[in-house]
């Protein structure tokens, strides 16, 4: 029996009972389209987070303080809480580590910030001018923190667009206006460009002030929250990471890397962590949708079993005119696979449309990849074979004499 004949026989059998075939296909459509839509949400989120992390800057390495461990205690508090990094460490990195483009130390504190008639709670970031290069920040109006501000301990502030909206209202030019951070008055000298809307960390809700001002007037010590380092070329990132580790271990008089009081992370490390989280999310979403696919598969099996019973005489006849068991099995298997593939193709299209609608109405970013389409296609074929196998085998094993007599 030729392949084309097999397809034609299967097609005419399926179209013989259009309502039943249609309902069975519908089960597969629901399953496949929800799998496709769910994977698109997972992958869209992954892509967005990736873009966000890459948007922080390029060839970036960050140094964070280690765990804080109390004297005589084994209890660790959260990462980055220790006070181990200083401006001198940042200077040493700048001077001694090769292939570095810029070093930007920062301190990060959360404060209540007020203006006349409005207030907000936001992150105040003490920075140096190189921060704008390393973290890829551009000023929309006004100017950024300069080295003169740093030397003079100027009480000036550059606002993120969200903070500007919160304090002064949307699209207001706040240059020259006063804000109070921890009861100390600062003059607004600029507003940064937006870095991107939603997400779990809003990078636009920030206030930038000179690092020296922050340390002197607000915090009162010399420690840093982060040292940001931009490497010249991506291929140097790994070796620079090693240089910095060695340098800081030496500076902090630590012999064993395991007990280091700081972390050196590259952008790709952060990316890896984020990717593993979003991959888990994708798998979880797909698994939930996969359950409906299994239900669809059971529908296929149910229909095929009914069909085999209904067409017992036909099977008997086909055997009488010379069809081999294998040919009978193949015919019913082809019918099952054809049903699931039709369902699969429609499901892929609907899932794709569905993901577009999800993006349009909820703003969740989605992405249909070739991978998810091929996966959906493969899974629907596999379901056809998996759930069609038993009914096909049953059809093939019928005794032709009894099948011909079947009423």
């Amino acid at each position, binding site marked *: 029996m030729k392949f084309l004949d097999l397809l034609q026989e299967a097609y005419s059998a399926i179209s013989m009972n259009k309502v039943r075939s249609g309902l069975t296909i519908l089960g597969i459509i629901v399953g496949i389209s929800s799998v496709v839509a769910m994977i698109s949400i997972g992958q869209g989120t992954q892509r967005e987070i990736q873009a966000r992390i890459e948007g922080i800057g390029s060839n970036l390495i960050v140094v964070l303080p280690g765990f804080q461990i109390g004297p005589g205690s084994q209890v660790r508090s959260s990462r980055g809480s220790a006070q181990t990094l200083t401006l001198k460490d940042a200077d040493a990195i700048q001077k001694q580590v090769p292939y570095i483009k810029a070093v930007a130390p920062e301190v990060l504190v959360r404060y209540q910030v007020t203006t006349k008639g409005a207030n907000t709670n936001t992150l105040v970031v003490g920075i140096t001018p190189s921060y704008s290069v390393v973290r890829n920040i551009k000023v929309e109006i006004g100017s950024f923190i300069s080295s003169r501000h740093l030397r003079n301990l100027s009480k000036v502030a550059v606002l993120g667009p969200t903070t500007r909206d919160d304090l002064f209202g949307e699209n207001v030019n706040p240059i020259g206006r006063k804000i109070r951070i921890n009861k100390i008055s600062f003059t607004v000298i600029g507003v940064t460009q937006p870095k991107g809307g939603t997400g779990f960390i809003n990078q636009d809700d920030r206030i930038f002030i000179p690092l020296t001002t922050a340390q002197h007037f607000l915090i009162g010590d010399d420690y840093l929250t982060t040292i940001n380092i931009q490497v010249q070329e991506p291929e140097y990132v790994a070796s620079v990471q090693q240089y910095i580790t060695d340098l800081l271990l030496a500076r902090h008089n630590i012999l064993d890397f395991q007990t280091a009081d700081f972390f050196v992370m590259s952008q790709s490390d952060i990316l890896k962590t984020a990717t593993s989280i979003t991959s888990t999310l994708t798998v979880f979403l797909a698994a939930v949708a996969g359950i409906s696919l299994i239900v669809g598969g059971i529908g296929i099996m149910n229909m095929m079993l009914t069909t085999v019973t209904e067409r017992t005489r036909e099977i008997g006849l086909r055997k009488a005119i010379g*069809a081999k068991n294998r040919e009978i099995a193949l015919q019913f298997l082809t019918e099952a696979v054809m049903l699931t593939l039709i369902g699969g193709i429609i499901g892929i299209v609907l899932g794709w449309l569905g993901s577009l609608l999800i993006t349009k109405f909820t703003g969740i970013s989605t992405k249909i990849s070739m991978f998810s389409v091929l996966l959906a296609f493969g899974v629907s074929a596999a379901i056809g074979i998996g759930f069609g196998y038993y009914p096909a085998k049953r059809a093939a094993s019928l005794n032709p004499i009894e099948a011909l007599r079947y009423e």
Partner: protein
Amino acid sequence: MIQLQNVSKIYKNGTVETKALNNISLSIKEGEFVAIMGPSGSGKSTLMHILGCLDTPTEGKYFLDNQDVSRLSSDELADIRKNKIGFVFQSFNLLPRTTVLRNVMLPLIYAGVPREEREERARRALIDAGLEESCFNHLSNQLSGGQMQRVAIARALVNNPSLILADEPTGNLDTKTSERVLETFQKLNIKQRKTIVLVTHERYIAEYANRIVHIIDGSIVEDNQNHQQRFINNSQKESLTL
């Protein structure tokens, strides 16, 4: 062409053994039109199943075209059925809601006949079976009983088998259409020298054959090769034998 040597068929149902065929020997030559006649339960259906390679004998040997087919596997039997045997059933067994032509072309699909040849061969078989050409594209369920049986005969003919087996082919038809179907068998037998084995329980039907094998309780009780063959009418007899 057909040789059965001491064929027995025993069915086992738990501990109960039923002997459906008891030591049957029979030979049928090419071009014969044989009626196997007997009451229900006589074993004539079992005999037909063995002749049609749907079943194998428990004991004895069956030679079809000098080939021993009594101990073949189910796939090998399927090949024999495909190439050498055409079946006509009492209840026609046409594919429902399928055109006449597609029904007749069905055996050609399994025989691997090229697509271009199939329709031509199906048309020829349908003309030989005596179906009007206007019906060729009708759906099988739009036909009358007589027409359906003609389609079934065409389907049995289309592979050019050496043996046509008809199991109570007139059982679901009225007398008038029965006669026309039997006439068709006679034509095929006389004009195309087809070997036909017809299974029936009615002597009246059996008399259209040129040899009657009478079977009771699994044994042949009579094998009459010289009886007066019945024809629909004498003018037809002349037109057939000419």
